Every structure is written in structure tokens, then in C-alpha cells.
């Protein structure tokens, strides 16, 4: 059995989760501190979560495709994103980021505002408040966001197949491999990948649920 879909999936999920982690926390922090326009900002950031992934993939093709501005620019360096491994990462980031953003934002909002206000009146800089107070006191929420976005990235299908394709050894992930296997009537192979995906996701969630990091302070 060719193992490349497993490696590509894991690589994609790990890299996209790292990117999602920073962008999601950053966006959550920005939106929570917005003076106005929460509703609109929140809706735009959440949209990829509720749209069909094919729609997301289609827009990614429009934005990064060879005829787009970005695509034209990249072509000057003889590079195209479409049907590359990087495209699987971008698809996974766009689709899983709202999960990171939403969970983190919820955790930020649940933290007693007075704790932040107290830190300010006590002279603590915003930077230190963020790293030493906000993040440590919301870490179980942030961890939940990591779990959700990682498992979402593991199973990403629609946007990936539209934007990155299903090229064995390059962009074929476990979920697209299942699709190909079923089309080729290879149910045994599809079953193996399906079991692999279920086990990975389940094990990952269990590890996090039972790890000591998830205990609230």
C-alpha cells in the first residue's frame, strides 16, 4: 500500500495547524478588541466554515489561478500554486481557521474583563497582558481550537480537490485517496484509509482530552 497520502495528510495538517494557530488567535484578539464592526468581521471570518468547501476551493482557484493577479505575479517566477502541495495547505488553512478563531474568541470573551482591566490599571503593557495573562488563562479554549482545526485539516476534502487536485504522491491526501479508491472500485483500500482517518482523529482528540494541559488553572 502506497503510504504517501498518509504522509501528505499529516504534513499538511501539521503545517496548516501551525499557520491557523497564529492567524486564528490574532484574528480573535483583533475582533474582540474592535470598537465597532464585530458582526461584519466575524461573519467574513466565519464564512469558510459554513460554505460548502467546493465553493471555497472555487474561490481559491479564482484568486490564485493562472489568470488572476496573484497567479500572473507568481508565473513571473515560474511558479503556480494550483495543484501543488502548498495548495493543500492553503485549502486546509482557509477551511480550518474559522474553528480556531471561533473557539479562541469564545475563550477570550469568557475571561473576566476585570482581570484585563486590573492589569492595565496596574501598569502592565498590552504585550505582556496578551502573553502572560490572556493566553495562559485561556489555554484550554485555545487547545480546543487546535484540536478542532487540526482534525478538520486532517479530513479536508472539497477545497483541496478543487484547488490542489488529487495527484498521487503530490497532493493526494487520505480523504482524496478514499475518493479515488472508491471510483476505482477498490473498497478495501478505501476502507483502510477511512479507518486510518477515524483512528487518527479519535486518538488525537483523546490525547488532548486526557492530557494535563487541558486542566483549567
Amino acid at each position: 500500500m502506497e503510504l504517501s497520502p498518509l504522509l501528505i495528510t499529516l504534513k499538511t495538517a501539521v503545517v496548516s495547524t501551525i499557520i491557523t494557530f497564529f492567524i486564528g488567535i490574532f484574528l480573535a484578539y483583533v475582533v474582540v478588541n474592535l470598537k465597532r464592526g464585530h458582526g461584519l468581521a466575524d461573519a467574513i471570518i466565519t464564512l469558510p466554515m459554513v460554505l460548502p468547501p467546493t465553493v471555497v476551493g472555487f474561490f481559491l482557484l479564482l484568486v490564485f489561478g493562472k489568470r488572476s493577479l496573484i497567479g500572473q505575479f507568481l508565473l513571473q517566477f515560474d511558479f503556480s500554486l494550483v495543484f501543488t502541495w502548498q495548495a493543500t495547505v492553503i485549502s486546509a488553512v482557509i477551511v480550518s481557521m474559522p474553528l480556531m478563531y471561533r473557539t479562541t474568541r469564545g475563550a477570550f470573551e469568557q475571561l473576566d474583563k476585570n482581570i484585563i482591566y486590573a492589569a492595565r490599571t496596574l501598569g502592565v503593557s498590552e504585550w505582556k497582558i496578551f502573553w502572560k495573562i490572556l493566553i495562559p488563562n485561556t489555554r484550554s479554549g485555545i487547545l480546543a481550537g487546535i484540536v478542532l482545526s487540526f482534525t478538520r485539516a486532517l479530513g479536508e476534502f472539497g477545497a483541496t480537490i478543487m484547488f490542489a487536485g488529487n495527484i498521487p504522491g503530490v497532493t493526494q491526501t487520505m480523504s482524496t485517496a478514499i475518493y479515488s479508491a472508491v471510483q476505482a472500485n477498490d473498497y478495501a483500500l478505501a476502507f483502510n484509509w477511512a479507518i486510518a482517518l477515524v483512528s487518527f482523529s479519535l486518538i488525537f482528540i483523546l490525547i488532548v482530552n486526557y492530557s494535563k494541559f487541558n486542566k483549567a488553572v
Partner: protein
Amino acid sequence: MKLIVNIKKILRDFILNVNFSVEDEVLALLGASGCGKSMTLKCIAGIQTPDEGQIILNDKILFDSDKKINLKPQNRRVGYLFQNYALFPNMTVFENISFVAVNQKSVAENIKRFQLDGLENSYPNKLSGGQQQRVAFARILSSNAEILLLDEPFSALDSYLKWQLELEMKNIFKNYAGTAILVSHDRGEAFRMSDKVAVMNRGLIESFNEKHELFQNPKTLAATLLTGCKNISAAHIENDLIVADDWKISFKRSDLTKKIKFVGFRAKFIQYSQFEGENIFLMEVVEVIEDTFSFLIMVRRKNTNAKLIRWEVDKKIWHSVKAPEIYLYFPPEKIILMEK
């Protein structure tokens, strides 16, 4: 340490418009909930921004709408004690204090001063309310605050614990020479803790007095209610008598110069009398309620349908005099006269 506050802010139901100054004393802002007293503190601390005005602390301008100055809370050196103390949950007692301390020497000093020895490595959720309050104070003083703002420090507590914390806070105040503002809706707390009391009502300071002055002679209806007076009647002056319209009673009193709109009479100051006489009226007992250490007797002027008056009487006295009709004496000097 002198603080001058003169600010305006449009709130949802009313306009906050306060103007006062305090210097080296404890001021209580007394008012019903939602009257703007906490908002005033938050504006001073920089957590909220007024629409216009100035806030000046010791010649340092914290806020000035004309000069476009609005210092960040970090640069104001205003210590704010939150109702729930807002300790950092992820830090131990020692870390809570040292994290904000200007110099590390003060950390050990304040741990000692607030009797926190032995608790340095405990997390806030393991501390009692009193211990949390002491940590919060130690933290504020280590951060070199120049003024203390206390936002309803005891209101979330049951009465026994409340009293313990109040005693502790009085001890802290004894060694604190600076300026402090206490926000409260509890008249007793305001009286016991402060030197001066400002009564707030719907965003305005209605009266600003030395505390004894306020409780003896609250000049407005809101102030009278806040000082705990239960008997209030609309009133006017007619033929040198104070006519309490709601009670259908006319009082005699010699010093009647001002126009008045309301009169008040504290339930405790009404006295039993055996005979009729000046400012003594025959009252009909409508209801008798037994309280912890006294009886609350609801009475009204005999043969009228006037508003009930609450009379608080010692249990022993009531047992010896109780009757369906009774003469009551209203000492004229105890009548509270309100102009608005």
C-alpha cells in the same frame, strides 16, 4: 494627593455629569445601582473614556478633552480595587504582586504588611475572600498607585464575611494617608469607611458633604432615601406649619424659612407618648411586624386613609404599651426637610 474630576459622558438612560475634588481623604460615592458611580471610577482609571471634561491627579492631566489628552490606564497610576479583586488566576500570590511591582523590594514588604506570609505560593482560587482582598491591596500598593479606587468592595459577600473584610480594610486605611474613593450603595458602609459622602442620582452628584452633616441633614429626596429614611411624605408650608400631605399631619417647628417639597422622619426617632400635646398625634396601628431586635409598627393618623408611617420600637416598650390606638411624638428637630 489631590484629584480633580470634572467629566461628562452620555450613557444610555441619562447623562453622567460629575464635578468634585478630593485631597487626602476617603470619599464615598453613594448611590442606587446604575446611577453612574462605577462609571465615574472607570473614567478616572481610564477603563472608560468620558465624552468631555478633565481629570487631574496631582497636577498630572489624566484626561482633558480640550487638550486631547487621554492617558492610558497603564500611565495613570490609579489603583483600582475590583469587586471580585480580579487577581490573575494563573499566578501565585507572590507572582501576582511581583508581576506588577515597580521594585522587587516592595514585594516582600507588602507581603509582610498584608500578612500574606506562607501564602506566597498559593493560587488565588485557594484563598479566602479576605486573603484575596489583601493580595489585591498588596498588588495595588506595589504598583505604586497614587490613589485608591474601590468599586463596591464588599457587595458580593454575605454579611458576616463582609464585616470581617470591612474591619480589615479599615485597618489598611488607618495606615494609608492618601486619597481614596469608595463606591457603595450601602449607607452604613459609606458612613463607616469614609470622611465625605457624595450622593449620586442619575448621573449627577446631588449632595457633597462631610458624612455627619449628610446623615443629619440630607437635603434631597435621593439623599434621604439613601441614608435609609423609610418615612417620606410630600409636604408644604402653610401658616407656619409643615403640612405633610401624605401623612395628613401638620408639624410645628420654629425655623421655617426655606421652601420645602418633602419631609422625612426616621422610624427610630418617633417616640411613644402618654398624652396629647404639641407634635403628638393619635395614631391607629395598622400592622405589627416583629423584626430581629425591635418591632416595626405601621401606623396612620387616626380616622384618615393617610399613607402609613413606619415606627421602629424596642421590643420591651412595645410589649408594655401596645394598643390599637396610640399617641406618638415626632420631635420637631428630627424632621428632615427636603427642598427637592
